[in-house]
C-alpha cells in the first residue's frame, strides 16, 4: 500500500492538514492501515519536493492560527493519481514469503511434522479470518468502503488457507508414495528426481 498515493487521492477531494489527512485515511480504510502523523508529514514533505502537492493558504506558507499547514494537490499530483488508479497493484506477496520458505524448509528437514506445521498455520489464519468476519458483521455493516477493505483481507486469508489445504494434500500424497522413509534422511533426495524418472517410463 502506498501512503503517497493514498494521501494524494485524499487531497484530490480538497486541501487538508496533516492531522485531517490521517483521520480521513483511517476512515477511508476502516483503520485497517493506521498511519502515524509523522509518516503523514514525512510523506507530504516528499510529495511537495516532487511538486505533487503545494502548501495552501498564506503565500509564504505560514501556518494558520493553530500552527497547522494545509496542503493542496498540484496538476502534476492529479496526473499521478490518475495514473495510480489506472494501473494494477503488483502481486508482491512479501509478508507471506516467510510462510512459503518455512514450508519448503519443513518438507526437507528430517523429523519435522509438516502436517502439524500446516495445521498450526491454518488454525492461526482461520482465527484471523473469524475475527475479520466479526468486524465486518458488527462494525462495517453499514460502511461499504470499510467492508470492502475487510473483504479484501478476508479473500487473502482464504487464499492462504486454500494454499495450505493444497500443501497438505501434496504432502500426504508424497508420503503415500514412499511408505518407508529411510532413517538416514540426512541427505534428503529431491522428490522431483524419482518422480521425473518414473514420468519418462
Amino acid at each position, binding site marked *: *500500500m502506498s501512503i503517497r498515493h493514498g494521501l494524494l487521492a485524499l487531497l484530490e477531494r480538497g486541501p487538508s492538514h496533516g492531522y485531517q489527512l490521517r483521520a480521513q485515511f483511517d476512515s477511508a480504510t476502516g483503520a485497517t492501515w493506521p498511519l502515524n502523523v509523522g509518516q503523514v508529514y514525512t510523506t507530504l514533505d516528499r510529495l511537495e519536493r516532487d511538486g505533487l502537492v503545494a502548501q495552501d493558504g498564506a503565500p509564504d506558507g505560514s501556518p494558520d492560527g493553530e500552527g497547522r499547514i494545509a496542503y493542496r494537490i498540484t496538476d502534476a499530483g492529479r496526473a499521478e493519481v490518475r495514473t495510480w488508479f489506472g494501473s494494477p497493484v503488483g502481486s508482491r506477496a512479501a*509478508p507471506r514469503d516467510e510462510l512459503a520458505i518455512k514450508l519448503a524448509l519443513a518438507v526437507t528437514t528430517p523429523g519435522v511434522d509438516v502436517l502439524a506445521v500446516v495445521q498450526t498455520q491454518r488454525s492461526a489464519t482461520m*482465527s484471523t479470518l473469524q*475475527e475479520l468476519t466479526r468486524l465486518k458483521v458488527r462494525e462495517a455493516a453499514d460502511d461499504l468502503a470499510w467492508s470492502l477493505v475487510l473483504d479484501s483481507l478476508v*479473500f487473502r486469508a482464504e487464499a492462504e488457507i486454500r494454499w495450505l489445504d493444497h500443501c497438505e494434500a501434496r504432502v500426504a500424497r508424497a508420503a503415500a508414495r514412499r511408505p518407508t522413509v529411510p532413517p538416514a534422511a540426512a541427505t534428503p533426495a529431491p522428490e522431483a528426481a524419482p518422480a521425473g524418472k518414473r514420468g519418462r517410463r
Partner: protein
Amino acid sequence: MSAPVLELSGVTREHRQGDLVVHALRGADLTVAPGELVAVMGASGSGKSTLLHIAGGLDTPTAGQVLVEGQELTRLSAAALAAVRRRSVGYVFQDLNLIPALTAVENVSLPRELDGVRGRQARAEARAALDEVGIGELADRFPDEMSGGQQQRVAIARALVGERRLLLADEPTGALDSTTGEEVLRLLRARCAAGAAGVLVTHEARHAAWADRVLFLRDGVVVDTSGPVTGAESLLPAGGGA
C-alpha cells in the same frame, strides 16, 4: 451457560467391508450450546458428513454418545428418534434431497405437515421461510425449474422452517455465488442468535469464519479447533503501508 443442544462424546464410526475397516470418525467430541455456530472443515473423506449424520440421528455411531437436547439418541425407539429428527433437527443435505414431484413450497412444508401441523399453516410457514432465503417468488416452481443455487435455498428454507433447535448444514453454500453464500451464513447466524445451535460443514474458509469455532478433521480425527483472535492489531498486514 445454558444446557447444550448437541453433545457428542467419544463418537466413533467404523465401516466394515470384509476384512477392511474404514474409520470414518474416531473419538470425536463436540458440544454445541444454544446460540453457537460451529464449522467443520477437512479434506474430502475426512468424516465431515459422517459427523453431521450422526449428530442428526441419521447414522448410528459404533461407539460413543450422542445427545440432542439431553436425549441420548442411541437409546431412543425408532419412533422417538424419528420425532427428534422432525422436531428438533433441521438438516441441509449435501445432495439437497428435494422431492422432484413437489413444488418449492410443498417441499418446505412437507416435514411440518408430517409433524401434524395443518396444511394451511404449514404452507404459510413455508412461504415465510422461502421469503427469508430470498426466493419467495419461486414458491410454486418444481425443483427442475430452478437453478442449482435456487434449489439450494429451498433446501435451506426446509431446514429453517419451524422451531428447530439444531441446524445441521452440509455444504449449504456449494452452488451459491459469494454474496448469496454470505446471505446464507447471515441467516444461519441469525437463527443461532435466536437460540438455535448450528453445525456447518464447508470447504470454504471464508464461510467457516462465520462460526464461533472451527473444527478441523483429518482422517476421522478432530485435529484442531480455532476461535477468533482477539486484538485487532494482529489483523493488520505486516508493515502497515508505504
